[in-house]
C-alpha cells in the first residue's frame, strides 16, 4: 500500500520512509498491545492476579517485557520487509536505527501495557485503546520519527541527540508512571 502511494521516486521515499516505518510499527504494536490482558480475561485469571500477594508492579514489568520483546521481533521483520519491497539499503543506518527503535518501543509499550490493563474490562476496548494511547504517545512519535529521519540521512549522532534525550526522558517518565500506578488500575 505504501509502495503504491509513494511510487518509484527515491527522494520522495527518503522523505516519507521514517513516517511509514513508524506507522507500520505502531499499527502492528497496537494489535499486540491491545491484547496484553485478554488472556487473563478469557481464562478468568484477572481476580487471580489481584489476589496474588506482593508487589503488583512485577506483573506490569513482566507484561511490559513480553510486549517489548514481541514488538522488537515484529519491528525487525518489518524493517527487513521494507528493505525488500522498497529496494533500499538500510545497513549503514542500522546502529542509529537500533537505538531509536529500542527507545521508541519501550515508550510505546510502557504506556500501551498500562492502558491495556485499564481497558481490559471495557466492552469497546479495541476502539478505546488507540484513542487513549495515541495522544499520550505524541512526544514519543515525534522524537522517534525525527531521530529515524536523521539516522537514515546519515547525520552524526550529536545532530539528533536531543531527540534521543527526549525519547529517553519520555521512556523513564512512562515507565515510572506505569510501575507506580499499575496497582491502582488492577484494584477493584
Amino acid at each position, binding site marked *: 500500500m505504501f509502495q503504491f502511494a509513494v511510487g518509484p521516486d527515491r527522494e520522495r521515499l527518503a522523505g516519507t520512509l521514517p513516517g511509514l516505518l513508524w506507522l507500520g510499527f505502531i499499527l502492528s504494536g497496537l494489535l499486540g498491545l491491545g491484547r496484553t490482558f485478554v488472556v487473563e480475561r478469557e481464562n478468568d485469571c484477572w481476580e487471580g492476579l489481584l*489476589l496474588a*500477594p506482593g508487589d503488583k508492579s512485577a506483573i506490569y514489568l513482566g507484561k511490559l517485557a513480553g510486549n517489548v520483546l514481541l514488538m522488537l521481533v515484529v519491528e525487525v521483520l518489518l524493517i527487513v520487509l521494507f528493505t525488500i519491497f522498497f529496494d533500499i539499503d538500510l545497513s549503514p543506518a542500522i546502529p542509529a536505527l537500533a537505538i531509536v527503535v529500542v527507545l521508541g518501543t519501550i515508550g510505546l509499550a510502557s504506556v500501551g501495557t498500562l492502558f491495556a490493563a485499564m481497558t481490559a474490562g471495557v466492552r469497546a476496548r479495541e476502539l478505546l485503546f488507540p484513542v487513549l494511547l495515541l495522544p499520550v504517545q505524541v512526544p514519543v512519535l515525534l522524537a522517534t520519527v525525527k531521530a529515524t529521519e536523521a539516522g537514515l540521512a546519515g547525520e552524526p549522532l550529536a545532530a539528533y541527540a536531543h531527540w534521543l534525550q527526549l525519547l529517553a526522558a519520555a521512556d523513564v517518565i512512562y515507565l515510572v508512571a506505569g510501575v507506580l500506578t499499575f496497582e491502582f488500575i488492577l484494584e477493584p
Partner: protein
Amino acid sequence: MTSEPRIRVTGLRKTFGSHRVLDGLDVDVREGEAVALLGANGAGKTTLLKILATLVRPTSGTAIVAGHDCAKDAERVRHEIGLVAHASYVYEDLTALENLRFWTTLAGLRPSAAALASALGSVELDRAADERVRTFSAGMKRRLSLARFVLARPQVLLLDEPFAGLDQRAKKWLEEHLASFKARGGAILMATHSFGRELAVADRIAILAGGAIALDTPRGALSADDVQRLYDLHTEDAP
C-alpha cells in the same frame, strides 16, 4: 474458645446501585472452625466471600480477616487467605505444572520441583502434570486450583461451592484436606447450596437471607433433613 476470630464481620453492608445485597451482616469464624454459609441464589454469599477476599469493597461495616481490615489492609489479607471461587484461575494454554509454578511464584513462594509434584499428586493430577489445562475437565481444573493451597498454606479458606464439579474421590480428598486444615487451626467459610458432603466439614451452619444472617447454629447432630427444614423456613421469602 476465647481467641480472636480469624474472620470477624460486623455490620457489613454492600449495595450495587440501588440494589442492597448485604444489609448489616455479622458473622465470626474462629480458629479451627468451619462455617457453612447457606442461602438462596442472590442472597449475597459470593459477595460476602469476595469482600473477605478483598475483591469487592464493602459499602459500610467492617470485615476483618486474620486481624487485618479487608478494605484498609487488603495486601496483608491476601497473604492470609486462599479463595476457591467459581472461576478456577488457571491458564488453559499452560500445563498443570506450569500453572502451579506460575501462581506459587507470583505468591512469593519458591516451591521445589518435588514440592510441586507432591502438590499435584495430592490432588491426583500427577499423571496430567505436563498436559495443557485446556484438555482438563471442570473437576480437574478445580482440583488444580486447590493444589495451590496445599503449597501456600493460608490461615483462612474462603470456598464458593468447593465440591461442585468434583468426582467422589476428589470430594473425599477435599473433605480430608479441609479436616486437616481445621485441625491445624485454619478457619473456613464455605458458601454452598448443597446439604450433603459440605455440611460434614462444617461446625456451624449460617443461613443468609435478606442481606443478613437469619440463623447461625452449631451443626451438632442436625441431619440433612433438619437443615433443609431450617433452610426452607428462613429463605421462603427469598425472591
